[in-house]
């Protein structure tokens, strides 16, 4: 087991202020504070080599949890163990086996080429010449970095910079990788490349990866297992597929038929859309085989497609379920 988290809690004291001139003035003399509990009794374990997706809306507590795992934040209570280390002790041995990538923050030095930051990391992480060369060559090839190595970071596009960030954080071959929204702001094409890279890297090096993202595509492409967090509480921890079956006990049937065809579609399932010969039906999972064979037998069908409901819908439902509990 690589990561073990037990009853983790984190609360912040936040300064609250009403709007308006007089209130602003008043807050100079008398400050009011509010305690915000960002993470509540979270427990989980992650095994070596696993990729786990960490999902939740903004402010759910994902990043806070991740920062505690990386040792940046001290937990208010509870225990964390990463590869036998307590992250908040910030031992150098721990720092050398892990890496943190924050999509919104750069570790590359802004006005000089990325190679300079790579060289700094080489020394700071005490990477020997041979393995540095080898790792760098591999990363340069996989991420197509060659043309970027000599260019100041500020002149790069976001996608180019993100690829350099990834390379930079992998030079010391961490066994645990925390990726906080690594694809944020990237175009679809670059997102796909970054995803492929992460998937390959995990396969080849058995790196344990915890990933947060707002893009469902990241999670469906990379993670078999997801953890869903909202309002600081862990709502679900398990396989993505199981979650989907549990929350959306139906599939979508997309049928193409001649536009003149009419039928009692409601008797087969809930009609989502029906126009220009394209019919979309929502059908309970156990009725899907029956409904499809009936449709095929009774109508002239050009095409029939059975789909899982989009992940976005599943996740939205997961968040809604939790709000009902409140």
């Amino acid at each position, binding site marked *: 087991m690589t990561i073990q988290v037990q009853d983790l809690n984190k609360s*912040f004291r936040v300064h609250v202020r009403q709007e308006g001139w007089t209130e602003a003035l008043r807050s100079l003399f008398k400050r009011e504070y509010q305690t915000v509990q960002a993470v509540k009794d979270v427990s989980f374990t992650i095994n070596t080599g696993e990729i786990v997706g960490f999902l939740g809306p*903004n402010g759910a507590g994902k*990043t806070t949890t991740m*920062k505690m795992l*990386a*040792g*940046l*934040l*001290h937990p208010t209570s509870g225990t964390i163990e990463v590869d036998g280390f307590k992250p*908040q002790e*910030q031992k*150098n041995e721990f*720092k*050398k086996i*892990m*890496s*943190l990538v*924050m999509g*919104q*923050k*750069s*570790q590359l*030095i802004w*006005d*000089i080429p990325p190679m*300079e*930051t790579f*060289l*700094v*990391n*080489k*020394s*700071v*992480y*005490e990477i020997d010449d041979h393995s540095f060369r080898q790792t760098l060559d591999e990363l340069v090839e996989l991420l197509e970095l060659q043309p970027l190595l000599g260019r*100041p970071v500020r002149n790069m596009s976001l996608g180019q910079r993100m690829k350099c960030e990834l390379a930079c954080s992998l030079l010391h071959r961490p066994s645990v990788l925390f990726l*906080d*929204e690594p694809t944020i702001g990237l175009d679809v094409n670059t997102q796909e490349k970054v995803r492929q890279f992460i998937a390959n890297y995990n396969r080849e090096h058995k790196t344990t990866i915890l990933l947060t993202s707002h893009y469902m595509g990241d999670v469906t492409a990379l993670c078999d297992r997801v953890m869903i967090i909202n309002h600081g509480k862990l709502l679900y921890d398990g396989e993505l597929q199981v979650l989907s079956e549990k929350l959306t006990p139906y599939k979508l049937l997309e049928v193409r038929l001649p536009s003149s065809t009419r039928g009692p579609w409601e008797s087969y399932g809930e009609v989502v859309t029906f126009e220009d010969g394209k019919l979309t039906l929502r059908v309970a999972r156990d009725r899907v085989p029956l409904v499809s064979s009936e449709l095929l037998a009774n109508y002239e069908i050009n095409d029939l497609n059975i789909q899982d409901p989009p992940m976005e819908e599943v996740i939205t439902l997961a968040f809604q379920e939790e709000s009902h509990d409140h």
Partner: protein
Amino acid sequence: MITKYLAILRMKYVEMFAYQLSTMVWMFGTMVQPLITMMVWMNIYPDQGESFVLYFVALIMVERLTSAWDVWEMDRQIREGTFSYQIVRPFHPIHWAIAENIVYKGLFLVVLVPCWIILALFIPSLRLHLSVTGWGLFLAALLLGAVIRFAMSFLFGILCFWMNKVTAIYAMFETVSLFLSGQIAPFSLLPPVVKQISTFFPYRYMIGFPLEILTGTANSHTLMIGFIGSFIWAVVLIVIISLLWNAGLKKNQAVGG
């Protein structure tokens, strides 16, 4: 440790030349205020013009070589959240700051010393008559001054873990420093009470004390008090930093997504 330092020194060196213009402004722009102050004093005491030239040119030199800017950097990085990357890397952030100080001050030295030598060719009062011991004492005081100023600045930087915009408080600290460190007037012109008070504050040891040695106005009593004061302040500040650092990390909110 040394290889880590060398790597960061190299990177800071490359970075420094990426900001050519701002580095130059930084080096020469700060000369304006002492030069104006010098002219004011020369106007008040026209017969002492030469000693003011020596004092204020030496001031520019010492001030640049002991200058500290770490609090501004830390304030920005902690507020924006990029400081996190220094915390997660296996090398204490203070070393990054020290390396940066070495690089910039090295550049100031390489540029300002030849400037002084050229000026001294034309202005006789700038020719220094220090003994070898004198130079040794000056360098020791200068180093202690740089350590104290750096430590003070870094200490304020650590406070950013607790407060927003510590730089406002630091700016106030610097303003007081203008008077008590000898940047507005030479120590000999300050009222006796201020001179007394300045012995207990760190300001004098940051700039005024090395300056007195360089301009040859320090007697043996001043030297003794000066070195004892500098040393105590340096040790005290380093101890406070090491205690405050861990408390600061616990408090750290690692802001930003």
